[in-house]
């Protein structure tokens, strides 16, 4: 036991003396929380749109007023020809153009029918769709105003209630995702690289011939990262709950237990990677290049998993952070207890066991 603690102490020294690595370990989660909490959003705001008002009458004015009132749009009023609109799109200066033809009001008054053209820069289809929808809604809203005068029969009202996140805060979606991402990636990266470093510099051999169980030495390597990750987690929780109104409705103990489990899974994965590579560069390539984008995508907080083709959804199932994300949402936002998340926790434990098993087998065959 004493020997083990000696190892752990040495590892702590390694980690704490390297300030740049500490930058990553602590800086990154904080940076991510700030970015995700305050800068990144799926909401569409301040999109530049062009309104070509050829009518310049009361009706078009009213519509433009309504458009201006919306936070989604930043309006520029210029009459443009189609090729000018195309150029504006090509320069990235506008994302949408609304064309109100001449005699708009007249047509409405006398024929009860008028047209408006919405031209969207569909290079970003999602944006195009959303902006078109918003604009259409506003126009239809105007239409409603006109129709107020007509008798409104058979009105169906729908009362809508937002559950779990009534203020539609982005934080509730992102914060659990950031937790999952940070805990997983940082642990995998740090563990795999630091163990391989010992292989590369030859100090691993020293460990292997020493009377100490090399397994203990390796476990000792992971201990500082475990503790640092828990500190990280606490930091993220404090920041998100105090500054971003992130709810914390369930049991904190359960949250920490689940997080510890994810950390162990991540450390096991790091272990496996370190066993399979021979240089720090390789380990880093796999942990960083190989895992960054997939983890972001398959955790489920950036893109909805159910949109993905089913083979990819299957792949997502082997990404540990996906299961953790579900657990965290359940505990923090929905206030659920163990009975609701035991399945996901079981899956995580299973993954850990498999990873450790493969790691140790590889390790043994090298020793033999």
């Amino acid at each position, binding site marked *: 036991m004493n020997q083990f603690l000696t190892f752990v102490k040495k590892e702590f020294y390694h980690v704490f003396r390297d300030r740049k690595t500490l930058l990553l370990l602590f800086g990154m989660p904080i940076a991510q929380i700030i970015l995700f909490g305050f800068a990144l959003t799926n*909401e569409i705001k*301040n999109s530049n749109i062009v309104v070509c008002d050829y009518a310049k009458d009361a009706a078009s004015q009213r519509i433009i007023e309504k458009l201006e009132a919306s936070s989604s749009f930043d309006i520029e009023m210029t009459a443009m020809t189609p090729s000018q609109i195309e*150029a504006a799109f090509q320069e990235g200066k506008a994302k949408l153009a609304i064309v109100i033809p001449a005699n708009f009001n007249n047509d409405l008054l006398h024929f009860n029918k008028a047209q408006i053209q919405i031209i*969207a820069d569909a290079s970003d289809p999602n944006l195009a769709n959303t902006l078109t929808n918003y604009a259409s809604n506003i126009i239809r809203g105007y*239409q409603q105003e006109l129709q107020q005068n007509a008798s409104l029969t058979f009105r169906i009202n729908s009362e809508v209630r937002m559950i779990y996140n009534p203020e539609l805060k982005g934080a509730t979606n992102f914060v659990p995702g950031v937790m999952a991402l940070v805990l997983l990636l940082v642990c995998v*990266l740090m563990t795999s690289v630091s163990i391989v470093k010992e292989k590369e510099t030859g100090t691993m051999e020293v460990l292997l011939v020493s009377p100490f169980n090399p397994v203990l030495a390796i476990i000792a390597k992971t201990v500082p990262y475990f503790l640092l990750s828990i500190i990280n987690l606490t930091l993220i929780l404090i920041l998100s709950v105090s500054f971003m109104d992130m709810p914390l409705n369930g049991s904190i103990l359960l949250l920490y237990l689940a997080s510890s489990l994810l950390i162990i899974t991540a450390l096991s994965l790091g272990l496996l990677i370190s066993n399979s590579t021979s240089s720090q560069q390789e380990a880093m*390539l796999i942990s960083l290049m190989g895992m960054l984008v997939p983890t972001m995508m398959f955790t489920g907080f950036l893109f909805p998993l159910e949109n993905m083709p089913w083979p990819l959804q299957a792949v997502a199932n082997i990404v540990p952070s996906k299961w953790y994300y579900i657990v965290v949402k359940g505990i923090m936002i929905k206030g659920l207890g163990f009975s609701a998340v035991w399945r996901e926790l079981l899956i995580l434990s299973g993954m850990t066991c498999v990873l450790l098993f493969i790691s140790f087998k590889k390790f043994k065959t090298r020793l033999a």
Partner: protein
Amino acid sequence: MRTLKYLLRKEFRQIFRNTTILRMIIAMPIIQLLVMPLAADFEIKNINIAVVDQDKSSYSRHLIDKIIASGYFKLTDYSDSYYNSFKQFEKDKADLIIEIPTRFEADLIRNNTNNLFVAVNAINGTKATVGSAYLNNIISDYNGEVRLKWNTPARFSATPTIEITSLNWFNPFLNYQFYMVPGILVVLVTMVGAYMCALNIVKEKEVGTIEQINVTPVRKVYFILGKLIPFWVIGMFVFSLGLFGVARLVYQIVPLGSLFTLYLFLSIYLIALLGIGLLISTYSSNQQQAMSVAFFFMMIFMLMSGLFTSVDSMPQWAKWIAACNPVTYFIDVVRLVILKGSAVSQIKTQFLVISGMAIFFNTWAILNYRKTT
């Protein structure tokens, strides 16, 4: 000048000799480029809806049919108790619950009005807004139908209607992959370039061979060029492989604009990027450090680049950060040129900024690199 030839020969030999790493820097981006765009889709579809129908009349069934027929929703539960349906929320099996009260049809016909109740799982705010918007649209459409059935249709439409025609330019099929593939390619090439360059130099520091170079008359400009050029070539290669191999063959994305413009920007971009990698390496003494710093910045670059979320929606302070991010510009350009065919004159600002960055980072790195300490 001759020294550069020898430096390059050495670098290329070393890089090509390390087949594992070489394979990784090529295979990883390509595989990810193949798979990731399929996963990236913000479009809200397959929204899971649970219906609580306490009326079970022809009207209620008609409404439900309409909801399903829209294609946006998937019916996951049909029950007559709101309490049971709520369990669906907890299990994440439903995104919305719509409750149709008893006597829905009867009340509507008799009293002219009725209420529906919709509960939305708002954890994902965007999904919630969009989902409830779609549902509201369907309900009001249905409302219109009901009204039409009972009111005598007039010869003209009695109420003023605005007909909205919407056109989608550049991507009429609204193919989301068209939008994501170029962006993901940029990110992957960025990762390869920055990481490899930073780590390569730091490795020489760690092993000690850099001292051997410092003691020779090799000018530091040549040394740095000797490190940049190979990775510049690799960056160009990976990008080309991604563009012609994956984007064209698999996703059928053919650049609308000029390849020359694209590659011109790519060249300058790579120089800027490698400059950053260089800079990181001059401040790091071992690979772990270099990697930590590179990872940190890479994360921020990726998130703030407009790849996943739009820069327009960011608060002003975040927009300034995005403006200092080289990746933002390349993603911009790549989308402008490939999808919209923008010409050089239309992306002058981006060119200027990226050239400025290339000069800035490389100069800093060269000044910072000391042969004599």
